[in-house]
């Protein structure tokens, strides 16, 4: 087990390094130039372009910039934004928890809705409940986040006025204000995942008809004990796999949701970085997100072993 984990960690490190390199190159291939963005059109005299380029260290060859960046990176320094001239590390650290919070809240919400719905559907297989769950799951899966998000803003923010439609306040300043602004984006993000979980849980729970469960029933166990004690643990593995993979894509899927709700997480930071050609910011965000994604997958793989005693890593 230890050897396996170490090997996977090493692979992950290589992968993260590859991503870092790729992003450093790709981001510079986008047409446009941070110096031109900073100066705009009314100010970009050749002298000022040259001056700013020097001040920002952009006059150096790309490979030198890249090596310097790697050098700082191994020391844990993510560099300085070209546009705001602020250190990226602290800004990123301020935004990362907000995106994680959104992702975790969406996942919990999706599990809270999807899992019971899936179980209910499986237990009432081919009944009206099953049909309703299937239809809702399909809706959740297929509604694009920008449609769902806009709809939620319209209904809850503008018509019913139960939640603020947009924005963000710190948890420490105003806990309810914070949570009430979290709910709509989290729900938007959770819809598709809840749909997937419900479908997955339903099909995984269809083991209910299998022999070992008939045996369980035959020895007099209640249906509740059969479902939760024997069927669910078996059904959980695919569900966990789905949650793991989906959480990773939630990190990416939050881009649009953060934008619609003006949630100041990593995605808006990334978008802003791209829009301004703020190379170090884009590199830092992509690096952190992909590292998270890779680690999340690793954790998912490892968790199988805990859930299913038959899976062992050597």
């Amino acid at each position, binding site marked *: 087990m230890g050897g396996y984990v170490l090997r996977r960690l090493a692979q992950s490190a290589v992968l993260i390094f590859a991503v870092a390199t790729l992003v450093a190159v790709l981001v510079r291939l*986008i*047409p*446009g*130039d*941070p110096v*031109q*963005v900073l*100066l*705009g*059109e*009314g*100010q*970009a*005299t*050749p*002298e*000022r*372009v040259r*001056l*700013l380029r020097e*001040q920002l260290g952009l006059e150096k060859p790309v490979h030198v910039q890249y090596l310097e960046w790697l050098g700082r990176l191994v020391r844990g320094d993510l560099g300085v*934004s070209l*546009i*705001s*001239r*602020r250190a990226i590390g602290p*800004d990123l650290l*301020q*935004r990362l928890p907000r995106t994680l919070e959104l992702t975790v809240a969406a996942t919990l919400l999706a599990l809270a809705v999807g899992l019971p719905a899936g179980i209910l559907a499986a237990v009432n297989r081919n009944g009206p409940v099953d049909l309703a769950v299937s239809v809702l799951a399909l809706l959740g899966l297929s509604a694009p986040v920008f449609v769902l998000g*806009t709809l939620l*803003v319209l209904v809850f*923010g*503008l018509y019913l*006025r139960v939640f*603020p*439609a*947009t*924005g*963000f306040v710190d948890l420490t300043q105003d806990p309810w204000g914070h949570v009430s602004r979290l709910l709509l984006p989290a729900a938007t993000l959770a819809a598709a995942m809840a749909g997937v979980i419900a479908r997955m849980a339903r099909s995984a729970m269809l083991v209910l008809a299998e022999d070992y469960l008939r045996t369980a029933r035959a020895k007099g166990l209640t249906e509740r004990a059969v479902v939760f004690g024997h069927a669910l643990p078996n059904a959980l593995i695919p569900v966990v796999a789905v949650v793991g993979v989906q959480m990773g894509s939630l990190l990416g899927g939050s881009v649009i949701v953060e*934008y*619609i*709700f*003006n949630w*100041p997480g990593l995605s*808006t*930071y990334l*978008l*802003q970085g791209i*829009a*301004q*050609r703020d190379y170090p910011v884009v590199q830092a965000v992509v690096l952190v997100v992909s590292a998270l994604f890779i680690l999340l997958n690793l954790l998912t793989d490892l968790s199988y072993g805990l859930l299913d005693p038959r899976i062992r890593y050597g």
Partner: protein
Amino acid sequence: MNVKMQVYNGLVRYWRKGEVVPDLAESWETPDPTTYIFRLRRGVKFHDGSDFTARDVKASLERILDPKVGATRRADIRDIKEIVVVDDYTVRLNLSRPNAALLAYLARPECAILSARFLEAGGDPNVRAVGTGPFRLVSREPGVRIVLEKNPDYFRQGRPYLDRVVFMAYPDENTRVTAIRAGDVDFIEYVPWKDTAALQREPHIQVFSGYGPFMCLIFNVRQKPFDDPRVRRAFGYAVNRQSIIDVVFFGRGAPITGGLVPREHWAYNPNLEGTYTYDPNRARALLKEAGYGDGLRVRLLSTSQYGMHQSTAEVVQNDLKKVGVQVDLELYDWPTTVDKHNKGEYQFRVHGLAPEVNDPDFLTQFFRTDSPYTRSNGFSDPEVDRLLDEARSTLDQGRRKALYGELERRLLELAPWVYLTWREQSEAALKKVRGYEHLPGGLAFVSAITLEEVWLEA
């Protein structure tokens, strides 16, 4: 910039009607055309507690003039040859030549007065803000929010009224409108034109508006076919300005058929009105005269990032088709567009701009040889340069008006740009927000200067 105006003061500033009024300077005189003497306010304190004196003025202006700093306003106030501290509360500017527009530029937020002590200690104004303004900077998270609080020692008695101001970044226009409708925020800028009417109908919302920014076409005059003024003029007749106003700005604009100096300005020249009207026949005739009677195919640079730029380009494309010109659109995101503009990599482009000062000298930035704009499109005309320079160094307003009239006529004739429409610029606020004023013309973007007089009605 909005934040700059709250944290700092200038020697002078723009006020409600677009006039230049005293700020840190109490009064000034010009004993001769190349000398300005400013008498400074006493008892003003910076946010770090230090006293404001003439030394701060000298340090701040010298910083702007230092080519190594790369300050925005350097080119505009370069006529300042020397800044002399006469005593703690008197400062003298010696100019290399008379400059009628100097105060108009000094009133811009970019000419804010910083603390000399802060600058000498190596402080970076990009990172920390030590000013004398009505509000102090509490915290800043770029792209998210900036928090300001009242400066209790502000030199204007009883101002500001607000204890705390939070600037929130809402990059998406629809989210911005949702935020004001839902009451998540008290005030928004840049109301999208499609939503202005709906917001005006909301009982709890008020809208502040004015004309100021304008849309135009900029031609790269280095290359065919736009090296020929007849082609550029033809485009000026081919575009139906009213359809841009209707389609792009939902009726919220006015066609520009004459010069760029706005109607309410002293330098406005009414005789130029009607120079360019919608006249496809005239456009066709001019194209034929220029040798493009059999049709023409050109590329139009615009950006897909801003709806108004893209839609204007589409209207232009549509109108030009009617005079036998096929336009291929090149739509990029904004940074790429800026890049192509600065490198001159376009045939012609759509642009939205605004005069930055309330003085016709704003034309210098757009049309003077070697300005960033002419460097981009290759336009250079000795007569235009002469008129711009002479008008800037002439102090007599009547004489200046005549010079600018002549200049604008020449610009319309040469048509390095074709002016299309004024567009409305609006802010929206909840009704309880009182005391704000939308400044006229291109000063719309410095309207937040009035924030120190804003209060919330209970």
